[in-house]
């Protein structure tokens, strides 16, 4: 997440007014990838430097704020210990299982209900009510129902992912161009043809947004579930470190959490770009009409 801070030229110049002349003369900074990377490095360096300096000089209370070098130490310790092999694995398995099941179900139920307008209208208010429920409130209930093991945390992820994916898929289906549907009718397309050639491709970008959000929400569900009670996982770790005022350890876990989320977001972006290439194209020729 910190990587995004330096993304605009405004941020960059605020941090470093002395941009080299040679850089300024050509394209605007926002269009120069290497300049953006330089910006990221500067933001990171300034942030970490100030934090470390605050810690070393005692301006920041170490009990609450720790400092980068101490976090790094805890990180190394964690990596050598159970942070990756046990906790990260535990959380990711729970999120992955919950997310996959709920995402498939969300897409399937949305497509199914879009074909059954009556049932949809009946179900709609109940879905809205369930979705507006703060899901963390379900965590203790899930513990009662499913125990403190993995399954309880899988269900936490699923309960959040399902509705996000469902709602976005539904929105995608509803945003289908009426002219396209008219065209399908005029061309004599069957219901199945209309579905696979007109409706699904049109809903795809929206489904992807749903999946991306669904993953983030799934992570949220699992980690917050683990924080209430669990055998292992990021949430358990965070709760334990906070309890013993191990702020450095806490930040080390957060760091890994951010890293994994960012990595997976990148994977989503790549998959999206491949699957819906037509969305990112621009006019190549205005002439010759």
């Amino acid at each position, binding site marked *: 997440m910190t990587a995004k801070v330096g993304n605009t030229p405004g941020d960059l110049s605020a941090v470093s007014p002395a941009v080299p002349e040679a850089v300024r003369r050509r394209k605007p900074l926002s269009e120069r990838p290497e300049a953006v990377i330089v910006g990221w490095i500067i933001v990171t360096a300034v942030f970490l430097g100030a934090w470390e300096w605050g810690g070393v000089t005692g301006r920041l209370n170490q009990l609450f704020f720790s400092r980068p070098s101490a976090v790094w130490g805890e990180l190394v310790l964690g990596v050598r210990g159970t942070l990756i092999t046990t906790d990260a694995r535990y959380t990711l398995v729970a999120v992955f299982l919950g997310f996959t099941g709920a995402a498939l179900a969300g897409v399937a139920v949305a497509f199914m209900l879009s074909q059954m307008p009556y049932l949809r209208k009946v179900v709609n208010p109940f879905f809205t009510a369930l979705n507006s429920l703060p899901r963390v409130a379900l965590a203790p209930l899930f513990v009662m129902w499913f125990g403190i093991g993995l399954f309880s945390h899988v269900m936490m992820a699923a309960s959040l992912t399902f509705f996000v994916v469902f709602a976005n898929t539904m929105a995608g289906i509803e945003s289908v*161009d009426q002219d396209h549907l008219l065209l399908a009718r005029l061309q004599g397309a069957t219901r199945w043809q209309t579905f696979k050639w007109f409706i699904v491709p049109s809903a795809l970008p929206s489904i992807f947004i749903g999946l991306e959000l669904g993953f983030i929400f799934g992570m949220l569900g699992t980690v917050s579930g683990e924080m209430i009670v669990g055998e292992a996982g990021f949430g358990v770790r965070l709760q334990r470190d906070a309890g013993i005022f191990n702020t450095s350890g806490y930040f080390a876990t957060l760091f890994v959490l951010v890293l994994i989320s960012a990595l997976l977001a990148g994977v989503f972006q790549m998959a999206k770009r491949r699957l819906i290439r037509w969305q990112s194209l621009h006019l190549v020729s205005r002439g010759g*009409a």
Partner: protein
Amino acid sequence: MSGKTIVLDRVEQYFDSHNPGEPQKQVLQPTSLKMKSEEFVALVGPSGCGKTTVLNMVAGLIRPTSGTVTLDGQTPRVGDSDVGYLLARDALLPWRTALHNVSLPLEVRGVPKKEGGARARKILTEVGLGDFLDAYPSQLSHGMRQRVAVARTLVVEPRTLLMDEPFSALDAQTRLSLQQQFVQLWERVSSTVIFVTHDLTEAILMADRVLVFSARPGRVCAEFNIDLERPRALAELQGTDKFHDLFRQIWNVLRDEVHV
């Protein structure tokens, strides 16, 4: 394959009023029309006069309140593979290339992929888009997109062609070149055409017959045969005396209806 004979027998259309409680509104007064096989008929008239209603009846999209419509003696059916409908909006699928937009109606009809692709490629080349087969709609200009839409409509070689102001959204030059290209293609595919337009020049240049509709509720208030020779060179035709005579005659009728 020849164009279909289209017969409208005393068709009349009422639509529900937008304001609840009000009585239904008459859009089209009882109207009888007959279009010969391979005839090119243009419908002109003020907005809301029922021109598009006639088109939608022939397409089978709406049923007349009373009276009957027949294509070669049969009641029209939506999705009839023998009917092509071209809208003012191109309605291209943004996720399909030009080629795959044009081959779509063939896929729907179950034409083998290879054959469909070949036919789509051929007609796109004919409308001058041979170099843009793999371009997505977002990469094409307005005029090019409408050309793809024309190709998509003609690729199935429909025996009836319904066109609802297909060139109205284009600039003057693009419009003229598309009109010319369309007329050339049509002179070859031989289908019956009903062409709805606001543009009298376009109607005269392209059609065999121009029907002038009255203001709402619509009826045909005048009919003109356009005895210009085919094949037509549209750009040159616009300068001829014959064109100007026809334009003046029809405009004299149309003017009273559109209240200029």
